[in-house]
């Protein structure tokens, strides 16, 4: 029983950066932009969040910096693909190469200029991002650990996902946004400001990815700066979007499941199931590939990629 509980807690902690990345990418794809730059945006957010946290010892500033850096990174993508109508795949890949490179570059630069040749978050902020202990609530047996024992990012992530879901599914703006993603020409004809909707979503999505990056840098890497701290989580997030069938709420379950896959190897006793670790690591990707195939076989219109995803919108070419 306690193994299951521990596995669940570990899965939540491992899945949270994926949740941010996934929700960010959903925001992008809902306006028709398949942004392969998630890894890059997360890296830039990681770097900004960590460095600001390191310098100011303030978690709020660190989060804001991570968000702003993600927005800035997304702005490059937005200008190139929305206004300049550059190829989305190439732009996204470039953003990933650039973002990962820039984050590592700044990180190494800071390392070389630090007295101890290492960067560790100061005590105050480390305490703030440590797992919470809420009086009474956290002390409830089982339930306390299950629900009230995580760090602040986890709760921000879930709230963000729910807000994004509400925004996309329940508000009029969200309806317009989805229309843009399905058929920008028709949306434009209906008087929706397509370009503006695209910009807003891509930028917010980038900011959300940035916070996910900060999580990897500040929590997963244990409060010490490590090069390549995002380490493929951005790519898994792109995959998770499919698994979550473009719904931010399903992204919560999805990232929990993927978080579970990624820590499963530590919790399944070798005496029960003995398969090499590599297969555990492969699992998320195999499952995503299967989901991809299954969803294409089913061809449901509801839970599918927005129709205009990957193609840019040129108003005079409707």
């Amino acid at each position, binding site marked *: 029983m306690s193994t299951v509980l521990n596995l669940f807690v570990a899965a939540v902690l491992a899945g949270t950066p994926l949740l941010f990345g996934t929700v960010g990418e959903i925001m992008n794809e809902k306006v028709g932009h398949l942004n392969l730059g998630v890894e890059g945006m997360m890296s830039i957010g990681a770097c900004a969040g960590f460095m600001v946290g390191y310098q100011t010892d303030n978690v709020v500033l660190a989060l804001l910096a991570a968000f702003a850096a993600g927005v800035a990174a997304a702005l490059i993508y937005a200008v*190139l693909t929305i206004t300049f109508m550059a190829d989305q795949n190439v732009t996204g890949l470039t953003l990933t190469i650039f973002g990962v490179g820039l984050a590592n570059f700044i990180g190494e630069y800071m390392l070389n200029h630090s007295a101890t040749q290492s960067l560790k978050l100061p005590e105050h902020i480390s305490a703030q991002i440590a797992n919470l202990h809420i009086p009474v609530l956290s002390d409830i047996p089982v339930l306390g650990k299950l629900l009230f024992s995580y760090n602040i990012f986890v709760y921000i992530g879930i709230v963000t996902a729910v807000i994004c879901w509400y925004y996309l599914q329940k508000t009029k703006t969200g309806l317009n946004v989805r229309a843009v993603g399905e058929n920008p020409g028709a949306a434009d004809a209906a008087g929706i400001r397509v370009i503006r909707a695209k910009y807003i979503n891509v930028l917010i999505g980038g900011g959300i990815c940035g916070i996910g990056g900060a999580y990897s840098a500040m929590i997963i890497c244990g409060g010490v700066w490590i090069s390549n701290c995002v380490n493929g989580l951005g790519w898994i997030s792109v995959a998770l979007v499919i698994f979550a069938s473009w719904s931010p709420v399903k992204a919560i379950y999805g990232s929990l499941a993927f978080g579970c896959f990624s820590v499963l190897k530590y919790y399944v006793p070798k005496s029960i199931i003995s398969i090499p670790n590599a297969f555990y690591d492969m699992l998320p990707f195999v499952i995503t590939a299967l989901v991809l195939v299954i969803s294409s076989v089913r061809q449901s219109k509801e839970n599918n990629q927005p129709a205009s995803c990957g193609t840019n919108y040129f108003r005079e070419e409707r």
Partner: protein
Amino acid sequence: MEASKKTGREPLLRTVKRAELSRKKTMILRAASVLLALLAGGIFLLIIGFNPFTVYQTIISGAFRSEMAVQATIRIMIPLLISSLGVTMAFKMRFWNIGAEGQIIMGAIFATYFALYQNAMPHVLLLIIMFIFSVIGGGLFGLIPAFFKAKFNTNETLFTLMLNYIALNVIVYLRDGPWKDPASSGFPKIARFDLNAQLDSVLGVQAGWIIALLLTAIVYIYLKYTKQGYEISVVGDSHATAKYAGIPVKRMMLRTMFLSGAICGIAGMVQATGSDMTLATSVAGGVGFTAIIVAWLARLNPAAIVIVSFLFSILEKGSSVMQSTYGLSSYSADVLQGIILFFVLGCEFFVRYKFVGRKGGAGK
């Protein structure tokens, strides 16, 4: 125009498609974008306290300063050139093969099996067999997404992306398990190839460069002068046209993706037997992603791919020299690459479109 009436006011700037720009003007525009990029990169270098001229000079001289440096540059170029040719095949028919990384790995794995366990045969024969199996490995791995795309219209961008990670973990599995070098203590690794299974050097560089240049010529001829190559570009332009013209689109997709993956597989074999002398998890090492950018920058033209991949290799090699001499992190290469690409991507817009102000130029 109707669009602007709808909102009641004309936007300050709007985008209009340009009549075809002359070749010369296009070239000037692209050159200008690269210059601008270098300028932007220079500002970045200035901010972090480096003289951009020194850096650029060191990058170039670092790639050419000695015979060994040139050889190292070429060695970086070989897999990049080959896999760029590979993805070009797929891109020509608008099949988004992001999976070069995985296809490189699969090619390398198939070849490695023979290098490790079937290496008691004449040297040339062994290399030929390894070559053939790298073609099969990479090709089959390219065939998987093509099969699902043809059958169920499965999104190939995401599918090939997933296959990259699956392939990577196959190496990890082999390294930690069945192919683990029993002689190595500590970190598990795959044994170094027997000398018999190593690619020979020609003019100081592994023979992969000959394969790469031959492939360039073959891909060029295939795409430009054969019926199949022509069919690929028809499918790339429009599936409907291709179907109308009686081109078996699905069969062609399968064939082309096999070839695309096969070429990437060759890159994997060449890297493993020619440069690494073993199968490492870094056998692809991001080359598959860079190849996509190289292919795109070269406008899917094999001759231009040679030039672009050469320039990328200079940047890569030169910045590693920057690191050893000035302590400037070699990640600066990625940053510079990114900046240059952003500018080139932006510039393509001005080749195809132009902005028109509120007054004047309307309807042109």
